Every structure is written in structure tokens, then in C-alpha cells.
């Protein structure tokens, strides 16, 4: 349970960190909260030659409202996000998902940027960011770019991050500006609290003044090699007035057509598929109920 030898750098600024990542290329790994990387290193499943510790960089940890966006610095700890009033108000889906992320001790150390960059297929935040149409800012020594969450996760532990790039910020758009009302809901099932999810879903829906669904963004996790956007499910909801039957059919479509879960000792593919359908139905019911009761924002 000891890692292989590695070089260690602790830059105090973003530019210094980016320069180190550029110098060392694929040999270097940024260290954020270390709640996945350090265990992997201790098991010697990960053996980076160089660690670039981001914990001494103070300007990567913040939560701010900027225009219609909620902006969260990549090194912001899960626990800070969980307890933030700005997050609770502007991104209730994130707030609702936070307690499902491992345990308090892990959330105290783990970071939002680390979780997204790690891209575990059973992680909560990647799916939440897809459901919210969040944008992930990545930087390297040359400059920065924003990647829509839906394009960021490319496979098992794989992202759109290039060598030398670092996740620096997550921008979450606030509620719909077109006057429609938004509701979100999060559901997850695991055998014990804090375990990797057997299946989970993050849902965001919007309804117009007549109660018709104008938008449905449903992202499932734990049921594929990456978070899956349930587009078949969304097509059955958008343009329709949500009803018990309509939601039931859409949730069934998500489980049938939008995912292809794998089997392991924890759960069979068939069980995961069933679970995904049930959780999607529950999440949609709650999300629509919330959209209907949401006060129209000033």
C-alpha cells in the first residue's frame, strides 16, 4: 500500500502549475483532493512520475454568481459546494446530489474539478453537470477553452482534457431565462451509503405557462462507461404535458434505449437497467412537481 516513487511539485500559482504540466506532459498528474488518485497510486494502479499538487493555489477555490452563471473554482471542496447558499439557490440539483458523494470525510477533501477530471463512470457530478448544461473551463500554458459537459466525458475515466490541460472552473447556467419554470431532481441507489452507485440519475425539466414540457435533460450514471444523456427519454417528454403515463413511458424508454449497462459482482446488467428505469421515473416525477410549484423568478 505504498505508491511507486514520484517527483512532487507544489506550485503556488495557476501559471506555475500549468508550466509544470506543460513541461512534464503525460508523465505528470495534477493532484487535487487526492481521494481517487492517491488510493490508485497506493494500489500501484496509477504510477505517475510527477505529481503537481494544486492545493497551495488559492485562487482556484471559489463560488461566485456572475451574470446568469454560477461559477465554481475547480479546487473547491465538495463540502464547500454542499454548504453553499449560492449553490442551493442557483443550482439546487448540485446541492441535492452532494450528500451522495462518498462520505463527509471524503467530501471535505475531494474537489469538484478533481471529480470531473477523474470521470469515474459511477460518479454523481459528471451526470449532474450534463443535466445542467454546465461548461467546464480547461486551461493550459497557451490559454483556455470551455467544453460543454455533454462533450467533456468521452469514455471510461476519459475526458476531452489534452495533455498539459487543467480543469480550472465550472460554469453552471442559472434557471431558464425564457420565463419557463424549471425543476430538478436527483436519484441514486447503492447498497450502502457512500458506495459507488449501482445506478443514478440527474434530471432537469422546464415547463411553460400552460404546463407543457419545453426541456428535459436527463443524465444517467453507473450504467455505462460514462454518464449517459437520455435523449430518447427526453424526446418523449418535450412538447408534451407531463402525466403519470407519459413520465412512465419516458422512464421506460430511458432504461430500454438510452443505456447499455454492464454486469459485475455488485449488480447484473438487467438489474441495473431496471433500477435506472425506476430511478428515472422517480426523478422525473419530482422534477416536474417542483417545476409546477416553482415561484416565477423576478
Amino acid at each position, binding site marked *: 500500500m505504498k505508491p511507486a516513487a514520484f517527483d512532487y511539485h507544489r506550485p503556488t500559482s495557476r501559471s506555475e502549475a500549468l508550466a509544470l504540466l506543460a513541461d512534464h506532459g503525460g508523465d505528470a498528474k495534477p493532484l487535487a483532493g487526492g481521494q481517487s488518485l492517491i488510493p490508485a497510486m497506493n494500489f500501484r494502479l496509477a504510477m505517475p512520475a510527477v505529481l503537481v499538487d494544486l492545493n497551495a493555489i488559492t485562487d482556484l477555490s471559489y463560488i461566485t454568481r456572475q451574470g446568469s452563471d454560477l461559477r465554481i473554482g475547480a479546487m473547491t471542496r465538495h463540502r464547500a459546494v454542499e454548504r453553499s447558499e449560492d449553490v442551493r439557490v442557483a443550482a439546487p440539483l448540485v446541492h441535492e446530489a452532494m450528500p451522495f458523494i462518498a462520505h463527509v470525510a471524503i467530501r471535505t477533501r475531494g474537489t469538484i474539478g478533481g471529480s470531473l477530471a477523474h470521470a469515474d463512470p459511477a460518479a454523481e457530478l459528471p451526470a449532474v453537470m450534463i443535466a445542467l448544461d454546465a461548461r467546464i473551463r480547461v486551461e493550459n500554458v497557451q490559454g483556455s477553452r470551455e467544453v460543454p459537459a455533454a462533450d467533456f466525458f468521452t469514455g471510461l475515466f476519459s475526458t476531452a482534457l489534452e495533455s498539459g490541460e487543467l480543469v480550472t472552473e465550472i460554469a453552471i447556467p442559472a434557471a431558464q431565462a425564457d420565463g419557463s419554470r424549471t425543476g430538478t431532481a436527483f436519484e441514486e441507489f447503492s447498497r450502502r451509503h457512500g458506495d*459507488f452507485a449501482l445506478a443514478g440519475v440527474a434530471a432537469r425539466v422546464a415547463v411553460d405557462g400552460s404546463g407543457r414540457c419545453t426541456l428535459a435533460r436527463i443524465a444517467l450514471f453507473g450504467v455505462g462507461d460514462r454518464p449517459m444523456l437520455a435523449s430518447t427519454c427526453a424526446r418523449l417528454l418535450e412538447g408534451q404535458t407531463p402525466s403519470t403515463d407519459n413520465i412512465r413511458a419516458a422512464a421506460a424508454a430511458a432504461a430500454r434505449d438510452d443505456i447499455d449497462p454492464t454486469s459485475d459482482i455488485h449488480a447484473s446488467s438487467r438489474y441495473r437497467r431496471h433500477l435506472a428505469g425506476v430511478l428515472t421515473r422517480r426523478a422525473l416525477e419530482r422534477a416536474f412537481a417542483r417545476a409546477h410549484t416553482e415561484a416565477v423568478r423576478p
Partner: protein
Amino acid sequence: MNLSGTFAFAGPRATVWALLHDPTVLAKALPGTKTLTLAGPGRYEGAMKVSIGPLTAAEFAVVVTLSDETEPSHFAMQIDGKGGVGFARGGATVDLADDANGGTVMTYASDIQIGGRIAAVGQRLVESVGRMMMKQALDALNAELRTRMQAGS
């Protein structure tokens, strides 16, 4: 881990059969293959390096033994991989059939046991990795097949 499915190759059965038995082609198609040689009749030996995202590549020494061969429609394989982080052991069957458009439909089924440290830590990921490698390998074989067909026509 049970990996099974079908795959449509864009070329005739005899060519697909030949590709599936050519160590040079297989070495290029199978992700992470460092070496692959024909060690005896129906016996292939090689070394593979499997890496998943940030995880450092795990090296495996692999022996694949073919059996039950009925050219050009069926063969079975015994797969035996050993590495520092664990082992993979199991069997697979491959069936080839003509399709209506001059292509070939491959039907495959496998049952592979994974053990050791990799299974203890990464059990929930094993099937995803298997699927990913299978897809990459089949797509690469199909690309090679297309190249050969164009070169031949």
C-alpha cells in the same frame, strides 16, 4: 465477464478468416498489443499493455490457443493472460456467416474470469474495459479489411 455480440465486417468470409488468424494484423488491431507471434500451430503468444484513462498500463503476457477450427466458419479460443496486477483466463467462440451484401457477420461469445488485484479493485470496470477493447479491435480489423479490399479491387 461475458462479452458477446455480433459485428458486421465489410468483406467476404475467407478474408475475414485470414485476418483473424494473422498475428501481424491482430497485433495492430488489439489495443495495447506490444508483441504477438505465432508460437505453434494455433498457438499465439504475446504481450499486452492495457491502460484505462489515468491508470498506469498493466502488462500481461498472453497465450491464445485456437481449437475446434472449421474454416471459414467457426473457431474457439482459450485465452490465458498473466500480469503483475492480476490474470485473465477464459474461452471464446467465433462464428462467421455470409450476409446478403457480400459482407460477413461475426457472432462471438466469451466467458473470461478476471482475478488478482485488478479484480479486487477494478471489478466494476472490467466489463466496460472489455467492451471498449473489443470494439476498438473489431473496428480496426474492419478498417484493415476495407484497405485490403480496396487494394485488391
